[in-house]
């Protein structure tokens, strides 16, 4: 039973599919990796076998002992006074929001006996519409982070809040003497009307105090760009649902960020506009491959510096006044010609977008083209900048003030400048120099450590607060759990700074909304809490781009260095959230580390491979980290990812990766120049892309409208089987995953982790191929390494009707339900792993260790009580969220009616921002899933295996035009 991978190239008629560059070079290490069911077994030398068996013997003995359960006579604690409407054992749902970059991400929190266990987008909210991203899904684990600051401290010694209050009293007296001339406030972006009101009140009390804004992920840069382009700071809102053509320049609008969910939803709506062909076209010019670029039907690879020239060339092709045609390479000219052709007829139906690294120059031409094509107000809407505070100073100004000795008090609220500040500003040292400094944050982090006082902040899920979503709709945040540490909300601490004693947690927020709601306050307040938002998005404004604006010329240098926030831990604030650390990052599938992404050409020049260390030098500053050869990256562009290299994140996030902030220049935070040198050391990166490989070909398929048309009327042949057809109950559960809509965002994987108590195993175990995710987003490439096409393919358990795993299990631990669900019974499993070796889709996961957190860890509170927490030695896998199926059965059976279509929603389906996953009853011909199974793009993964899977796919659309050009 030797497993082979090379037969795919002979057997397939389509283009060769590859998952990683190791495969292209036919690396013998990879071959060995693939031949082993679980790679780590390989690393055991033969002499270790005896030792291994001995250990196994010992664990069998122990396993016997754990079988003896402790006495079942445990304590039962009823309520003293049971709350009205509380049904013991059933969750309750509350509308609130969590925050990302100061923006509200409106959620519905599932709360079991007073503890939130799961967050999902608020289905009524115009931005989330019930959909999520990875940060929203993981916020609940951040709440239970054992490394959060639990009590206020001074120089690291615990104090109590009355000490803080009296110290603030003294500070206020000092400030009053010179009207706050020596006070500085440093904060991250916020959209909270209450906090902005409190900051104004603070400014009024101490008129000479100055406020500085510190943003890590581009709010300031975005404001600078829009101020230069439109003459005022505005927020751009893409109406992707209205677009026929989108042209992007280094803008990952479907990538992570506060508006990912909104953009992804609009994108998928446009994409599905027609049943028989793709609904829109995407032209992307990009230096570093992004999720958005992976979906483009015409992708141009160009260095980050080329963007202004490219967009000007396109402007000239579209007849924008003042645009001159620069010199272009052949590929560039072709791309521009095709993009211009596609846009010409589309007045008000196209959209041009540019990213932060393109700077003012790119944004200026993009705005002018949008103006020329009548996109303003149609596909591109503007609002006044939502996040505040306004009229703020910069970080550099603050540092020079501190160094000049002008600052005696510094208040840092909800940001971590000692870590996220550009290295050259030496913020940590500057903060330490301030006589009295206050850090208000979730953790005693790098900044909290440097400050005199550290005041622990309540998590959004424990707070009364308010914030606005990206469209300007406000949400009033209500606590869904009472704080279990000695923490206060930002509003309480600010009220203390304003001179109040022991402010209540909701007074400030009520005050703000009392002004807003007027007489009907109580009614509207209750309504807003119930709905999770206050009706009314920000009004749109119409501002034409400035005609005479010019951009500063860029400098030329060795390599373009681009900075990007990390796709899973963002700017570093989520570093201590294990769920996010273990999510394979989009495109690289690296976990637990960041990388220095380079092009295949540059890697060849350096003779470097994945994991080799390299030193990046920008100006006088240097860092070193592991390299990643990114297929499809522009030759002379290097990407650095923010968020790693933390030292005070906690036990999960410390000491991972490299700290890109160290080399980030203050003046050019998104695109700069630098050089790269390969070092002799290397890292073994925890990468998942080559794990759980399937045998076969044509995993992720593409079809053109013509192919679909030709194939219609030829139903696929039902493969013969020696087994009798599985008798079906009334409901037959099945799933369809639309590859055309998948943007590889990982929201489904994060949601599955949260719903099904999937453990975090750590970097070493991931290296050993033992990650436990029940759902993987496989990433495939086709074509040349320099210019590949990329595919995302979510692969959960297929729930095969003729499931090989069920035939393999010696103890019937995996069986089939009458509804077609492949069931896994943990208590029967003896851990032979035969099922996994029989599984052609490689979706089964084995608990090599007891991955549960220590008994006293607060993270246990995040567990879903409706799902077993698995122990060591058992197999597990996707269950189609059976707890949700059974809950729907109970609800329907109690009312004596059938389950309605859409009543059972799996966690992955619920989270997916593009509705790429559809689940339901395939026996019901009117259900959505049954309808999709009749679609022309429908195909079965590894159909030749004859497993008759219930999870099937819709192929990605390919443009007919592209195909003809390709030939």
């Amino acid at each position: 039973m030797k497993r082979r991978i090379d037969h795919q190239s002979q057997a397939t008629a389509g283009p060769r599919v590859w998952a990683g560059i190791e495969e292209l070079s036919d690396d013998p290490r990879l071959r060995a990796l693939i031949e082993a069911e679980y790679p780590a077994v390989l690393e055991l030398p033969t002499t270790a076998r005896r030792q291994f068996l001995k250990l196994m013997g010992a664990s069998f003995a122990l396993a016997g002992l754990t079988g003896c359960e402790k006495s079942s006579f445990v304590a039962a604690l009823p309520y003293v006074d049971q709350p009205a409407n509380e049904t013991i054992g059933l969750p309750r749902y509350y509308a609130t929001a969590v925050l990302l970059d100061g923006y509200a991400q409106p959620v519905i929190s599932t709360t079991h006996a007073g503890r939130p266990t799961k967050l999902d987008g608020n289905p009524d909210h115009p931005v989330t519409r019930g959909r999520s991203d990875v940060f929203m899904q993981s916020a609940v684990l951040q709440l239970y982070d054992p490394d959060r600051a639990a009590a206020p401290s001074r120089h690291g010694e615990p104090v109590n809040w009355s000490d803080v209050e009296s110290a603030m009293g003294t500070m206020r007296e000092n400030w009053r003497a010179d009207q706050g001339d020596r006070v500085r406030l440093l904060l991250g972006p916020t959209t909270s009307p209450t906090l902005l009101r409190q900051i104004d009140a603070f400014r009024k009390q101490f008129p000479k105090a100055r406020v500085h804004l510190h943003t890590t992920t581009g709010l300031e840069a975005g404001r600078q760009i829009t101020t230069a382009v439109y003459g005022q700071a505005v927020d751009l809102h893409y109406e992707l649902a209205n677009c026929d053509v989108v042209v992007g320049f280094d803008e990952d609008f479907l990538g992570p960020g506060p508006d990912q969910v909104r953009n992804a939803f609009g994108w998928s709506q446009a994409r599905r506009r027609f049943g028989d062909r793709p609904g829109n076209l995407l032209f992307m010019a990009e230096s570093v491959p992004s999720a958005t670029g992976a979906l483009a039907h015409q992708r141009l690879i160009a260095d980050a510096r080329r963007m202004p020239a490219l967009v000007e060339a396109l402007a000239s092709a579209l007849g924008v006044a003042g645009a001159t045609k620069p010199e272009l390479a052949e590929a560039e000219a072709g791309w521009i010609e095709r993009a211009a052709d596609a846009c010409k007829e589309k007045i008000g139906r196209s959209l041009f977008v540019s990213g932060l690294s393109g700077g003012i120059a790119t944004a200026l031409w993009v705005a002018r083209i949008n103006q020329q094509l009548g996109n303003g107000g149609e596909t591109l809407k503007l609002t006044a900048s939502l996040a505040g505070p306004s009229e703020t100073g910069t970080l550099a100004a603050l540092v020079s003030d501190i160094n000049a000795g002008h600052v005696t008090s510094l208040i840092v609220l909800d940001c971590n400048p000692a870590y996220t500040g550009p290295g050259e500003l030496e913020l940590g040292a500057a903060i330490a120099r301030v006589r009295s400094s206050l850090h208000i944050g979730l953790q005693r982090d790098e900044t909290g450590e440097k400050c005199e006082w550290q005041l622990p902040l309540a998590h959004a899920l424990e707070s009364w607060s308010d914030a606005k979503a990206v469209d300007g709709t406000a949400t009033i945040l209500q606590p869904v759990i009472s704080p279990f540490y000695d923490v206060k909300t930002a509003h309480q601490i600010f009220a203390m700074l304003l001179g109040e004693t022991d402010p209540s947690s909701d007074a400030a927020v009520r005050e703000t909304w009392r002004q807003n709601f007027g007489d009907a306050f109580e009614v509207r307040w209750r309504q807003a809490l119930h709905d999770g938002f206050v009706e009314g998005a920000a009004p749109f404004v119409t501002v034409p781009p400035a005609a005479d604006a010019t951009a500063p010329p860029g400098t030329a240098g060795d390599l373009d260095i681009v900075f990007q926030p990390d796709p899973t831990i963002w700017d570093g604030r989520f570093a201590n959230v294990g769920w996010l650390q273990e999510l394979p990052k989009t495109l690289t599938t690296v976990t637990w580390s960041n990388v220095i992404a380079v092009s295949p050409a540059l890697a060849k020049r350096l003779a470097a491979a994945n994991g080799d260390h390299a030193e990046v030098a920008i100006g006088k500053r240097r860092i070193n980290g592991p390299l990643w050869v990114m297929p499809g990256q522009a030759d002379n562009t290097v990407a650095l990812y923010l968020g790693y290299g933390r030292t005070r994140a906690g036990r999960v996030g410390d000491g991972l990766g490299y700290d890109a902030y160290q080399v980030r220049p203050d003046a050019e935070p998104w695109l700069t120049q630098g050089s790269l040198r390969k070092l002799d050391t290397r890292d073994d990166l925890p990468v998942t892309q080559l794990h759980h490989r399937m045998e076969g070909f044509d995993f992720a398929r593409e079809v053109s409208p013509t192919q679909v048309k030709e194939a219609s009327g030829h139903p696929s042949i039902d493969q013969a089987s020696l087994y009798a057809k599985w008798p079906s109950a009334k409901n037959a559960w099945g799933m369809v995953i639309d590859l055309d809509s998948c943007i590889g965002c990982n929201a489904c994987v994060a949601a599955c982790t949260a719903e099904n108590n999937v453990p975090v195993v750590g970097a070493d175990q991931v290296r050993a191929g033992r990650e436990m995710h029940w759902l993987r987003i496989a990433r495939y490439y086709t074509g040349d390494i320099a210019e590949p096409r990329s595919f995302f393919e979510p692969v959960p358990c297929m729930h095969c009707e003729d499931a090989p795993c069920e035939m393999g299990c010696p103890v019937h631990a995996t069986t089939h339900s009458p509804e077609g669900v492949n069931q896994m019974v943990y208590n029967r499993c003896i851990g032979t792993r035969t099922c996994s070796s029989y599984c052609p889709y490689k979706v089964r996961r084995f608990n090599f260790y007891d991955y549960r957190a220590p008994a006293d860890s607060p993270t246990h509170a995040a567990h879903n009580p409706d799902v077993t927490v698995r122990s060591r030695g058992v197999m597990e896998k996707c269950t189609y969220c059976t707890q949700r199926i059974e809950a729907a059965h109970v609800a329907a059976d109690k009312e004596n009616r059938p389950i309605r279509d859409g009543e059972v929603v799996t966690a992955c389906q619920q989270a997916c921002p593009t509705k790429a996953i559809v689940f339901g009853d395939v026996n019901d011909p009117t259900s959505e899933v049954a309808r999709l199974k009749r679609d022309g793009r429908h195909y079965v993964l590894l159909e030749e295996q004859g497993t008759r899977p219930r999870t099937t796919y819709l192929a990605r659309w390919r443009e007919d035009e592209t195909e003809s050009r390709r030939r």
Partner: protein
Amino acid sequence: MRLFLIGGLSLVGGSVVAVVGFARSAYMTETDIRPQQPVPFSHRHHAGELGIDCRYCHSNVEMGPRAGLPPTETCMTCHSEIWSNAAMLEPVRESLARNTPIQWTRVAKLPDYVFFRHDIHIAKGVGCESCHGRIDQMALTYRAKAFTMEFCIDCHRDPAPRLRLPDHITDMAWRPTANARKEGEAIAAHEGIRFGELTHCYVCHR
């Protein structure tokens, strides 16, 4: 040699019987144990002699997975009026005064990997007594039936003869008639019981 074989076989057979017997013994299934409770609460008195309906205290039982133990407030609806000074009820009054729960010891407990729901069983015609026994005759509460998998699955395989009409759910004295199967099948048909689907693993284990 033959003696040896017979001896060996009977030893093996005997051990199997012993192990199975031990696993099903009252010691292992913890039936008939009356654990110490903070208040010696008598179901015989409350449910049997006074005839208080089960759902007066276990009010959650028709709505959710758990029957629920009554909150202290429920005890005090009566005991603020009668026996309001009884020494025996001191823990109840203390619970109310200090706002701390009464620490009962659970009697009917299923393993963590069993996801049982009271509401659906009651809705489909399973009586309280079917699993909990003659609670109305228990001075101190104990587990009357061994909650083994066999106990559950016997009924899941063949629910019909054990079903009763809705007005008999809390009736402790209800006994199946000679015609139980026929009556049960009528109830099952009316309630839409999914015969054959109730024995698959995910119904109870997740």
